[in-house]
């Protein structure tokens, strides 16, 4: 490895920038947007795991995000639990529900799985919306506390929250990196490639899909729990279908089935829609076509397109050598 620009070095550089960045800015707005971006990226990684790598596009993702957020919200606000305890319990709740839903949903395939989970996501939304005794209905949950301090580290300033979220994001990316670069990850990709073939080479596809699905709900729940403590107010809208589609948009623009896609896509779209704010009422007039064009001209997303380009260049090089 004599090359300087490797994925690894690039990641380290980016991480260093992300760590140093808050030390050089007081712009809370920028920190706020980055923090939100980190939260969404975590959820998008979950979507990528089940949809991008395992080939089962789940559209219930915002639902699990909502379950994670409401679990944390209810456990802290109504039961007065410490955030960290609530987060752990919230993740257990989310993954337990994910497990049960996965058992049934994963029996369906392709579009049917997508729409099945779309329905499940909508049902989760309706439950959060209508089950007022538990969730406060449309009013939502107010006053969710910031994460409790860990020792001397508090999380009540935007900067510290930024670091907390960055920490979780890096953790998630690290996990995804480890998983996808092992035979476990290859197993998922084999399932995406052809379930039939995977079965005949001895892969228990249902079990593997379950693991992948539950882990994806884990990421969604984690992201939701962090969101609850960051925005500190949650309403049923956070689990609405459009949120799933936002996540899917981030993923596709970034590159489905790539490790860097979720972050790239989320950063790009979130900032793009911020920059288009000056258009006010009509920003969708620009944003909509822009999105469509991106999809048409970068069908593999940014990270996927880059990978293709690099692969092609490698092939060309090797052809020239021959």
């Amino acid at each position, binding site marked *: 490895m004599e090359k300087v620009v490797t994925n690894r070095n690039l990641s380290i550089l980016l991480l260093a920038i992300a760590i140093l960045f808050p030390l050089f800015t007081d712009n*809370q707005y920028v920190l706020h947007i980055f923090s939100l971006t980190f939260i969404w990226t975590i959820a998008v990684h979950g979507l990528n795991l089940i949809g991008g790598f395992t080939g089962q596009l789940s559209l219930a993702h915002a639902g699990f995000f909502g379950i994670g957020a409401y679990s944390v919200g209810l456990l802290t606000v109504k039961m007065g639990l410490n955030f960290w305890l609530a987060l752990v319990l919230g993740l257990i709740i989310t993954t337990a529900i994910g497990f049960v839903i996965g058992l049934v949903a994963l029996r369906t395939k392709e579009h049917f799985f997508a729409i099945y989970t779309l329905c499940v996501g909508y049902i989760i939304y309706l439950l959060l919306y209508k089950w007022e005794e538990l969730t406060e*209905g449309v009013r939502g949950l*107010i006053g969710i506390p910031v994460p409790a301090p860990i020792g001397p580290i508090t999380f009540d300033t935007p900067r510290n929250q930024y670091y907390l979220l960055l920490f979780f994001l890096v953790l998630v990316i690290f996990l995804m990196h480890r998983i996808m670069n092992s035979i476990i990850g290859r197993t998922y990709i084999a399932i995406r490639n052809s379930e039939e073939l995977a079965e005949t080479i001895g892969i228990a596809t249902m079990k593997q899909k379950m693991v992948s699905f539950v882990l994806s709900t884990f990421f969604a729940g984690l992201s939701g729990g962090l969101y609850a403590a960051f*925005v500190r107010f949650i309403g049923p809208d*956070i689990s609405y279908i459009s949120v799933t589609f936002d996540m899917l948009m981030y993923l596709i623009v970034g590159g489905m089935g790539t490790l860097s896609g979720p972050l790239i896509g989320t950063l790009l779209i979130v900032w793009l829609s911020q920059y288009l704010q000056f258009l006010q009422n009509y920003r969708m007039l620009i944003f909509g076509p822009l999105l469509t064009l991106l999809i048409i001209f970068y069908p593999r997303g940014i990270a996927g397109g880059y990978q293709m380009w690099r692969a092609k260049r490698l092939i060309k090089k090797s052809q020239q050598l021959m």
Partner: protein
Amino acid sequence: SGTTSNEPQNEGNKKTEENQEQANEEKNKEAKTVNIGFSGPLSGPAAFYGENTLSGLEMAVDEINDAGGFEVNGDTYKINLVSLDDKYLPNETGANAKRLLQENKTPIVFVPHSGGIFATQVFNMQDNFIVAAYSSEPAITAQGNSLTVRIPPKYDGYIEPFTDYQMERFGKKIAFLPTATQYGKDWAETLEPVWKKKGGEIVYNGSIDFNKDTDFFTIVTNALKEKPDVLFVGGPSEPTALVIKQARELGFKGGFIIMDQAKLDEIAAVLGGTDMLEGSSGTLPLAVSIEPENQKFFDDYKAAHGKDPGSEAGYHYFSMYLFVEAMKAAGSVDDPKAIMENIQAGLDALSEDKKIYKVNEIEADGGLVTPLRIAVVEEGKIVDITVD
């Protein structure tokens, strides 16, 4: 300081430089600029609502600027209204408020929906800005947030007169069909005990989700099968009008209690007249109740937008002027605490022609106290039956 002007579209990094430049430029001119923020739904399903609220603010700002601005402590200020779209999503409101604060140093941010208000209340005390909250949600002022002004009135005052009128004219059986928003639910919860206490009976308790239901025949049929004398309806005027229409189509002959969010005149416009509204009680529409001194506002708005101003426009128009008066009284455009303390002074100083609603008092929790005006439809006419 709060005296810089800036267009919101500038890029983040260049921002400070340009700020500086523009600020220098401003200094040479006479008037300084104060930025006022707004974050509401400008796209998506709630865009109409957001535009209505914004239109009142814009009108007030244009008037103030055209008149050469306003004076605080010897300096003249013009207002730059910075409006951002949040698609009705709380986290977007939060981000917008941060942005308004960071890049435009807005001392006041208008937010016209409860979710967004909650999300901004999380940090408005710490970050020091006023949330100009257009929502009737009680929790907004119940939280002890000392930098929140609740603009719309509490609606409790409507309940008794509406109840009395309907019971007397139509009977004691009521069916509930309000909008499925928090506002509708709060209304229903307030109406219920009063109606019961007066010997009435609630024969059907439902709500309609205007964002999800394509047709209301089903629920109206179900409500009417309980033979109510009165229907409680409400939400945005236009879909509320449809509920009324469909109830009439299904043979309902009784009266309507109409939540204050919907306006009798707007409903009549949809229904092509007041025929179907016979026996309705609701808030007195601006169009009917407008005082002579507010006629200019009414006419100007109509000229600019081609329609009568609704209460969203009216309240926002009024409250923009109110904040200007409060800044004057506070002697500062960039000290939210001082402005907040001087709202009462602002109310006292505000001229009647800007008081589209005759608000004279702010409560300790930040709620404005609005006198209610009540109307009923009798023989095809909207009649003011307000009793002081």
